[in-house]
């Protein structure tokens, strides 16, 4: 057995140990098992990276999982450039967040439980990214969903938490529905669900059509869009984005790990992984790009007005995920993955900082009740500030490079909607900077607006929490340096390493534009970022009363944004409530109750009624008996004779 198989199985072992023995024996020491396991995975992941850098591609089957007729699928692993990037992202973030959790979750009653879930999550996520076939991908896909469910609903005695967990799972199932169908179509057309044969044969089927539900559709478009359904769910894109903000009910490390750095990016990973298929369908790519663009704008606008610390970051995540899809949709998979990679660091950092703030604030999340925290929590402030700069695309930081790459590829790529999505992307960059700094200013600057008690308790978080912050901060700053665009890189003598690295898997489309254009695009993005920060500074530091006035003035807009465009309400109205109403009033009330059961109970009661009716004929009077006999004779004789 290849030792890389241990990468996922170490966390699995940790999970098993923790769940079995955590409650009784490990208790406060549960984290050791998980951390050691995930650290081991990280080491192996780094080794895998080395291997891949040396040009090896690892692909092996562990055992046959399912075999039925022509359908065969294994548990097997594929480690190529894309996988290894994901491996690094997942194991690194996971390790750091494990460590962070030691401090954050300290004293919680479900300590062992938390760590076992984290380990299980890591296992699932690694299975997802390391899969060499669609079904195992689906396995990991559902596995991370499960862990997400567990961890969102970690504080299960809170109704909102358990609601949110449930919602996350069910909403994801909508996406998985399409994903599953996608796998079916893949199998039915390619006869296999392994990546290698599928991707290698994809081009030969580029023009094929497939009769789907009676319509002849372009095969590749069909597969790509069905698979993309899964991405929409997992990565919280419109229209399935509703679960992610609610998912913030989970403990903050979870939000950082699952709902920022790793799991939610699985959708992007899926698109990138299936790039050979997506690339064959212009329509599918367009859909991906537009979905990403619209989602990013949509989420960003909501993020502008939210007051919940974690939700703002969550909307930001949705928005950034949209960005990644935007990149994939214009064919710049590398850019998407690059952004995924940088985003993992700065977004995880943002969340962890938020967690640190919560920790200090005693669980308070309303940024309107914070302020001036920089005085009490310098490390948190510093790291969060850097992360916010990074996300706002301040040159030199990780976010700048990836975002710029995306915008440039959108602008200069071959996509017919490229210019449009570029425009949106730029707008979003502005909004992103604005709300990120709105957050910073409201939280760390100004006057403290919370209670005295809270103020009294304010303190910097323990080492186990701040060290991961710092380490992630390094990532948020430096992670982008592997992808410095040629425009800048040429001057300082570095390559766009990541693009070259990923090229064998994802290809690397060249932008069709001059250096000048590229420069302009880059400057615009820097400018809007700075403008956003500036506007935030203006509104929240210089003229703090302005936001309220604006809210008053544009009340309708404000309310729509504040209520997230009423999407939750809409879904409740068109899906949840009709389903339950149908169940209650139609299925139980009419079909089961009044049709089927009416027949089922009606036949016996009709027979019973007939019975009591017929009983009346048996009067006890002999004449009647004889009369009936005689009638019987008459009828029989008459019929037989007249026949």
């Amino acid at each position: 057995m290849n030792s890389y198989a241990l990468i996922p199985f170490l966390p699995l072992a940790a999970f098993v140990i923790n769940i079995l023995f955590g409650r009784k024996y490990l208790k406060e020491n549960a984290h050791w098992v998980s951390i050691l396991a995930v650290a081991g995975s990280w080491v192996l992941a780094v080794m895998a990276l080395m291997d891949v850098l040396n040009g090896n591609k690892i692909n092996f089957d562990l055992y046959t999982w399912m075999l039925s007729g022509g359908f065969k699928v294994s548990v097997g692993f594929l480690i190529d450039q894309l996988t290894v990037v994901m491996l690094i992202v997942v194991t690194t973030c996971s390790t750091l967040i494990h460590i962070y959790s030691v401090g954050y979750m300290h004293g919680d009653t479900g300590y062992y439980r938390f760590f076992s879930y984290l380990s299980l999550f890591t296992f699932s996520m690694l299975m997802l990214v390391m899969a060499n076939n669609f079904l195992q991908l689906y396995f990991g896909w559902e596995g991370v969903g499960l862990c997400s469910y567990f961890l969102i609903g970690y504080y299960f005695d809170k109704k909102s938490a358990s609601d949110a967990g449930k919602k996350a799972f069910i909403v994801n199932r909508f996406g998985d529905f399409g994903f599953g169908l996608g796998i079916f179509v893949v199998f039915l057309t390619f006869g296999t669900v392994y990546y290698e044969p599928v991707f290698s044969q994809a081009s030969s089927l580029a023009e094929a059509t497939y009769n789907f539900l009676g319509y002849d559709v372009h095969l590749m478009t069909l597969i790509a869009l069905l698979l993309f359904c899964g991405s929409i769910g997992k990565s919280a894109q419109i229209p399935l984005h509703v679960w992610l903000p609610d998912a913030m009910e989970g403990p903050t490390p979870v939000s950082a790990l699952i709902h920022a750095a790793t799991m939610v990016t699985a959708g992007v990973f899926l698109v990138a992984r299936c790039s050979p298929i997506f690339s064959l369908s212009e329509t599918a790519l367009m859909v991906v790009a537009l979905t990403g663009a619209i989602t990013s704008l949509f989420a960003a606008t909501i993020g502008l007005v939210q007051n919940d610390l974690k939700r703002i970051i969550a909307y930001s995540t949705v928005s950034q995920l949209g960005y990644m899809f935007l990149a994939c949709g214009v064919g710049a998979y590398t850019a998407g993955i690059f952004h995924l990679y940088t985003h993992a660091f700065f977004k995880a950092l943002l969340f962890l900082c938020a967690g640190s703030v919560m920790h200090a604030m005693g669980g308070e999340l309303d940024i309107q009740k914070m302020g001036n925290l920089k005085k009490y929590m310098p490390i948190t402030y510093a790291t969060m500030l850097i992360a916010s700069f990074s996300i706002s695309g301040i040159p030199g930081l990780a976010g700048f490079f990836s975002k710029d790459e995306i915008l440039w590829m959108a602008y200069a790529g071959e996509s017919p909607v490229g210019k449009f999505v570029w425009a949106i992307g730029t707008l979003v960059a502005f909004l992103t900077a604005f709300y990120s700094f709105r957050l910073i200013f409201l939280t760390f600057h100004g006057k403290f607006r919370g209670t005295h008690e809270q103020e009294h308790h304010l303190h910097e978080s323990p080492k186990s929490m701040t060290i991961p912050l710092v380490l992630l901060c390094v990532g948020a700053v430096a992670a982008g340096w592997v992808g410095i665009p040629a425009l800048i890189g040429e001057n300082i003598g570095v390559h766009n390493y990541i693009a070259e690295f990923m090229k064998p898997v994802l290809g690397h489309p060249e932008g069709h534009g001059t250096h000048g254009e590229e420069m302009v695009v880059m400057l615009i993005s820097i400018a809007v970022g700075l403008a956003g920060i500036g506007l935030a500074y203006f509104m929240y530091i210089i003229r703090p009363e302005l936001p309220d006035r604006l809210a008053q003035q544009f009340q309708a807009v404000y309310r729509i944004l504040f209520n997230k465009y009423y999407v939750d309400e809409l879904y409740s109205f068109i899906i949840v409530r009709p389903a339950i109403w149908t169940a209650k009033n139609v299925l139980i009330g009419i079909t089961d109750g009044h049709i089927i059961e009416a027949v089922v109970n009606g036949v016996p009661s009709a027979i019973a009624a007939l019975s009591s009716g017929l009983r009346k004929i048996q009067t006890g009077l002999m004449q009647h008996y004889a009369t009936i006999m005689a009638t019987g004779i008459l009828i029989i004789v008459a019929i037989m004779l007249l026949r």
Partner: protein
Amino acid sequence: MVPLHWYLTLSAAVFMIGMFGFLTRRNIIIMFMSVELMLNAVNISLVSFSHYLQDLRGHVLVFFVITVAAAEAAIGLAIIISLFRNKQTAHVDEMNEMKG
């Protein structure tokens, strides 16, 4: 010569009259007598068949019918008597403890 049909029709008529009595009369004894009437109707046809077929088996049968009728009457009347002891009635519509 009287045609056989006349006898048969007579027999049928008596049989039906007996049946009519059985179907309508309220008094058990008269119902009984109606049955006897029906048996006599059968006897008439048996005897006439015998006569016309020049065969005595019909007569044998009539002989047995009369025997059985006597036995039936004996038991029937015994039942009526024991019924009488319990309930002073010979009316069939008062014997409807059991129905339904």
